[in-house]
């Protein structure tokens, strides 16, 4: 059974989604239970695969339909994808547990279909990460994209409109990717990543214009999907208007998996040599990444809506990740890969905490933060940890990724990126300090009486302890602890996972 774990990991959510479509009459509890069991199964399989990869020290290959690649499709789980797979299934499981109250609140009808799309999205993301075939990646990209459109459209207010824009941008991105794969296929005749890598390293193809165009199209498509700075306009509205559960599921994972796809295309299909010697883009890309980091944080600072603030933080974090990947040295690569894991957890933690605040207060503006430490001490504490991680305070994992990224940037002599990292960090500190100051000191009635306004006749809102329900609190606390855990075990993660996945030539 152990050698079947890669397939089981992806298929369990697929079967769950099919079953969830049909079990409407059994009620919401059955749907919730089935979702959690299936994703827990995925997580177990992902962990088993990771243990296998780390123990044997080589990638696990799984031949679909028992066909020898490149004739058939294979799944390849190496040190890089093993970590990302565990991240995806763990985040999805925590979100699934968290969803008990919020999903029902956001979906009074057809909860089972909502959960079916949830499971499909998880299957799509896992499949994208595990596959060793560029076309198969496209098919699973479509699955994750399609299910995310459905989930996001179930949001509030103008969610339809925002999702429609996302649908257009996402479709353009996916078409670019497919077109690029088409060019590569014409020039090589293969779709298997390992086979492609071998063919593309031939000198006549390294010089070919078509291959270069194919690469550009693929990378552009992936950049649209991961919302890199000038192509990010679809993200903030689509994510901030989504339901709470949807935001917790999609915000941490979709963009991170797209970054993973970028790394795969850059270093597995093409090579570090081709990217940094033949295509001299890295300077330009690092400028884009720096702009993303700084402008993302500045825009986040100017937002009043809590979730919109977080979505701009994602835009900034994508800047960190992209910059790290294009620095072309080991520290930068380590930082980028480590930051995929760290940022996935950080974003999840932030969105869960804000989701809990919105669930209890019903507001999503910064005013909802008033007196948070009295009302929801645990949520506020976890939010503090997540904020510390985004800013980059030492014991949390956010510090270590920044440390690697800074090291890499200094080593590469990219001073613009160094400056961007520091400025973005400071801006994040200002942003969270403002929020937490309000949460710690600010009380609504104090603010009103100080102004001496006569309007404060109404009874001041009494501050009671109203912590979020246990199903929300538990995943929140686990994620918060994971931020510390990942930080403390940085050495192990780098040593057992990231160092092994280091591409040749950087």
């Amino acid at each position, binding site marked *: 059974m152990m050698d079947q774990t890669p397939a089981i990991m992806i298929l369990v959510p697929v079967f769950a989604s099919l079953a969830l479509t049909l079990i409407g009459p059994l009620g919401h509890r059955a749907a919730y239970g089935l979702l959690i069991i299936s994703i827990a199964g995925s997580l177990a399989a992902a962990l088993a695969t990771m243990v296998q990869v780390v123990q044997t020290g080589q990638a696990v290959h799984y031949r679909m*339909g*028992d066909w020898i690649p490149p*004739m058939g499709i294979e799944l390849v789980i190496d040190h890089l994808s093993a970590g990302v797979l565990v991240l995806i299934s763990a985040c999805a499981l925590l979100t699934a547990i968290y969803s008990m109250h919020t999903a029902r609140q956001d979906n009074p009808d*057809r909860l089972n279909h909502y959960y079916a799309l949830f499971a499909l999205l998880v299957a799509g993301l896992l499949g994208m990460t595990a596959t060793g075939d560029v*076309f*198969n990646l496209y*098919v*699973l990209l479509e699955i994750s994209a399609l299910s995310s459109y459905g989930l996001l459209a179930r949001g509030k207010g103008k969610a339809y409109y925002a999702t429609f824009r996302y649908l257009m941008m996402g479709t353009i991105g996916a078409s670019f990717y497919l077109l690029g794969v088409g060019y590569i296929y*014409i020039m090589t005749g293969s779709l298997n990543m390992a086979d492609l890598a071998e063919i593309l390293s031939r000198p006549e193809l390294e010089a070919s214009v078509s291959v*270069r165009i194919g690469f550009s199209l693929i990378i552009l498509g992936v950049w649209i999907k991961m919302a890199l700075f000038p192509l990010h306009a679809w993200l903030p509205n689509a994510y901030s208007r989504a339901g709470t559960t949807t935001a917790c599921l999609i915000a941490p994972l979709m963009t991170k998996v797209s970054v993973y796809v970028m790394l795969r295309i850059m270093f597995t299909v093409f090579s570090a040599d081709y990217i940094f010697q033949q295509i001299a883009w890295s300077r330009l890309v690092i400028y884009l990444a720096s702009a993303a980091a700084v402008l993302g944080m500045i825009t986040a600072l100017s937002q009043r809506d809590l979730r919109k603030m977080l979505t701009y933080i994602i835009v900034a974090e994508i800047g960190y990740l992209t910059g790290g990947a294009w620095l072309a040295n080991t520290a930068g690569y380590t930082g980028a890969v480590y930051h995929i894991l760290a940022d996935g957890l950080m974003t999840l933690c932030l969105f869960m905490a804000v989701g809990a605040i919105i669930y209890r207060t019903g507001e999503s503006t910064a005013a909802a933060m008033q007196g948070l430490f009295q009302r929801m001490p645990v949520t506020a504490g976890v939010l503090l940890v997540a904020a510390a991680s985004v800013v980059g305070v030492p014991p949390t994992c956010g510090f270590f990724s920044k440390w690697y990224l800074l090291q890499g940037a200094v080593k590469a002599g990219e001073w613009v990126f160094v400056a961007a990292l520091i400025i973005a960090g400071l801006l994040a500190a200002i942003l969270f300090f403002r929020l937490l100051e309000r949460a710690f000191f600010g009380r609504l009635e104090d603010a009103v009486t100080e102004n001496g306004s006569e309007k404060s006749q109404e009874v001041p809102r009494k501050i009671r302890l109203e912590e979020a329900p246990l199903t929300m609190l538990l995943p929140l606390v686990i994620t918060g602890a994971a931020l510390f855990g990942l930080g403390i075990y940085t050495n192990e993660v780098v040593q057992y996972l990231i160092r092994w996945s280091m591409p040749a030539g950087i």
Partner: protein
Amino acid sequence: MTWDTSLLWQFDILILLMMVICAVTALALEGLLSSAIVTGAYSFLICLMWTHMRAVDVAFTEAAVGAAISTVLFLGTAQYVNRWIKKDRPREQGIKQITLVIAVICAVMMLNATRDLPEWADPASPASTHLSPRYIEQAYFETATPNVVTAVLADYRSYDTMFEAVVVFAAALVVMVVLRRTSHKHRMALHLRPKRAGRDTVLRGAAQSIIPVMQIFALYVLFHGHYSPGGGFQGGVIFGASFILLALCYNLKFSMNRFREHAVLWCCAGGVLLYAGIGAACLAMGWNFLGYGALAGVLGVSDVMARSHGILAVEIGVGITVMAVMVSLYNDLASGGDLEEGL
């Protein structure tokens, strides 16, 4: 006569020109209905193009999905869309101009790449020398399926095909989740829907005689996929189209009485379940997922024949899902989600 000269290049240029005209017209037209019709014409032209490239399977799918069903779906949706012409503000004009510049740059880049692309239908191109010969030479001996396309689609790359069936299933699910919400904001729009009380006798008569033929043809396309162009996707689409025709010529109520909402949902999930279930059965019997050879023992045939039977079974799964999804999409889109009345 070589392969190359047998292609009429003038014909290609003509089709290409007409496609460009259709594409520009579809964008320029103000009426959504006429736009939808022109898009259908575009699909038909590209279907000719595929046929000319000898990609008959693709052409078949394009004709069924692009030219037929999606046009009907567009028409069904267009009746609920209020449309007005917005005057562009200067900023939007600027953005549109930038978009045009970007599009032109992309086009120049791609045209630039055609320099070192292989010739059309070049037998020495990488695509025809790397994997294709192996598929063409071995597919029959390894899967007992004469149609190489079917063998690649449903066996060598059946994992892809399974997820393509899941994509189709997800499409139905997404439309259901978005449109069939209890809180309907656009009840207003539904007043615009014309009443379709009395249908034409001629239409009904035509439907009565054509639908059974369509359904038998759909089954033939599905089951003959081993030997000729066709298979689950095409057969499923044609079968689904027969129900849509029924709904068009009679009304939605009538077709939904024949194929109830619940049955549609079960078929949508059931087809994929059949596909993935066969894969999982192989896995349970000690082979890898979708290794149909595992079924040899159960079926009492050789490994190669088991692969052929496996292909047939998963094609049936694809057919069921595609058929039900087409019906479900039509029901939802043409009725605005309330399943009361369609086009």
